[in-house]
């Protein structure tokens, strides 16, 4: 039985990684699907000085729910593909710096393989990936497979 750690968060690049990760699975294998909510959300209402606390609370709850809902859509999509291959799927939603979250998950799960998507090409739509850094590559202790960005 092999354990694959998939780091994806629903972007075009990571969807390609999802497909490759699922195709690697054999019946009985385990896929650990990691999604990271980046810690920049800490400072996202820092400069709001004039709203009252209820407006800020509504915003905070709204953002939390949105992030959770968006993550759940990705989790459900991957879980459905994994189920078709008679493999097991475990989900992890973490709020942290992307690199730290990945390394902590690797230390915790000790997977046979880590799969993630490539950063988006310049000028392509989407947020910048903060996961594939040199520090992460140096600290990675298991094989890492980076799936090329699809031609869209």
């Amino acid at each position, binding site marked *: 039985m092999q354990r694959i750690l998939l780091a994806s968060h629903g972007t075009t690049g990571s969807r390609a990684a999802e497909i490759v990760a699922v195709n690697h699975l054999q019946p009985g294998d385990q896929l650990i699907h990691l999604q990271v909510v980046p810690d*920049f959300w800490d*400072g996202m209402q820092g400069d*709001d*000085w*004039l*709203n009252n606390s*209820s*407006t*800020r609370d509504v915003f905070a709850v709204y953002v939390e729910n*949105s992030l959770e809902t968006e993550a759940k859509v990705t989790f459900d999509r991957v879980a459905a593909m994994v189920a078709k291959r008679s493999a097991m799927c475990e989900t992890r939603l973490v709020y942290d710096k992307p690199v730290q979250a990945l390394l902590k998950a690797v230390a915790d799960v000790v997977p046979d393989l880590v799969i993630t998507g490539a950063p988006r090409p310049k000028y392509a739509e989407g947020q910048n990936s903060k996961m594939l850094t040199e520090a992460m590559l140096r600290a990675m202790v298991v094989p890492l497979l980076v799936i090329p960005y699809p031609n869209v």
Partner: protein
Amino acid sequence: MVYTKKTPWVLIIGIIMCVYAWLVQQQYLAGVIKYLETDKLAGEMVTMGYIFGVIGIVVGLWQQFMQPKEGHLDYYLSTIGGALLILLCVFAVKYGAEPVFKAWGAAAGKSIGWDFAKTLGINYILLGIIVGMIVVNVFKVPTWAENGVRLSRLGLKTGVILLGALYSAAELAEYSKWSIGLIFVFVLGSVGITLFMGRRRNIPTSMAGVLSAGLGVCGVSATVASAPVVNAKSSEIAYSIGTILLWGILMMFIFPPVGRALGMTYEQFGAWAGTGILNSAQVAAAALIYQPNGIETLKVAEIFNITRILVLPIIVLWLAVWYVEREQTAAKVNLLHVIVGKFPLFVLGFIVLFLLSTTGMFAPSHHAGGKFFAGEKAKLLKDEQIVVLQKAATDRPETKAALDNLIANKRVMSKEDDVLLRGMEKAKETPKEIKAVLKDAHKNAWKTSPRIGWFRDLIIWFFAFGLTGLGMQITVKAITQAGGQPLIIGTTVGTIKAVGALIAVLLLKDLINP
């Protein structure tokens, strides 16, 4: 839940402040103070040092020797650490960094002909924000200070409320007239351009909605208020806030030097900053960077800011309706709930303070502007200055009469005389030495109201506290989320708004100078 985090730092900050006040009081720092030319602030250093130092020591000791229990007292006292951390930063920049930069700037002015501190407007407000940003981005705000740092928002709101007491009815009417006109044009214009560009560039309705509020009204606060109403996705919120923060910070640095280069009056700059800066928090910052030790710029900027803030519930309401019309899946919103929920209550405080001040309860009505005509209590000119004035000549009979009055009485006898003599002082043909005496005569004729002066200093402290604390909440991580279509649209709208507002203010040059 117990909010107070036990730490020796509150006690340490309290001791530092008290020791500093004592050293200043005992003249041990006289040499440093003289070198930094901060003699005028020595009294303030002692008073503020002892007040906040004692608070720090008392709360610090309480934290060390008592066990905080769940409740209101614990919650309120948990904010003291962060508040003191902000104040320590304000102390450091106001009494240390600003005078040092001033001295370096003056030295650079002499050696290379460029006083960078003056040109770039490096003062304690700007430095406070920068120090705040360094604290959060390099060192991270310590957990014991987090609650107190959030208190800075209250500091800014309190500053705005207190500012209400310093407007005369005529000023408020004049500024409001221009602010309503300009804000109406620029808010609707920015919202319109954003929605138009959004449609042309095929961005989702929710993103266009959240961006238009942020770029059009008051920046991050508008984004926070409108995001749930238009069901913005998390990435759309991140992009929008990142873009607005980036623009707000850039404009805060760019506006004051440009204003100085163009020789804008305080009123003009206040109107420009209040209209052209995307993010409302940076409006107050830019105004105080432009004029750190006075409030004329801040008064105008805040009227424009408040006008924008009052537009926020209306724009959010309109966005809610606009979004529901375009998106079939959108849930209907309670319009009354939106209006009431988004109304900035502190603006009511500002209005109440203004109304109370018109009754004369804070200071006599003729003190409202901060300065009042001293009349017979004015300091007399020296005999040698009178001799200089006797050489002055003018063709205008009314100015001649005012000049004769001045020579006879050694002081300006009426406000009308003062206006005429000011005209003579500004005239190109007036010789330098006569200009200098006329300037002194004008200075002697006007006194600063002690009560208003005290009030003004208090307000500036609230703003310095609020803006430094706000700096501690601006993270580079959030700013670097700027990108994609929002950055393109934000850059276009931000530039049009800044340049358009500048042109409008310059065209209305004489009108925005009541």
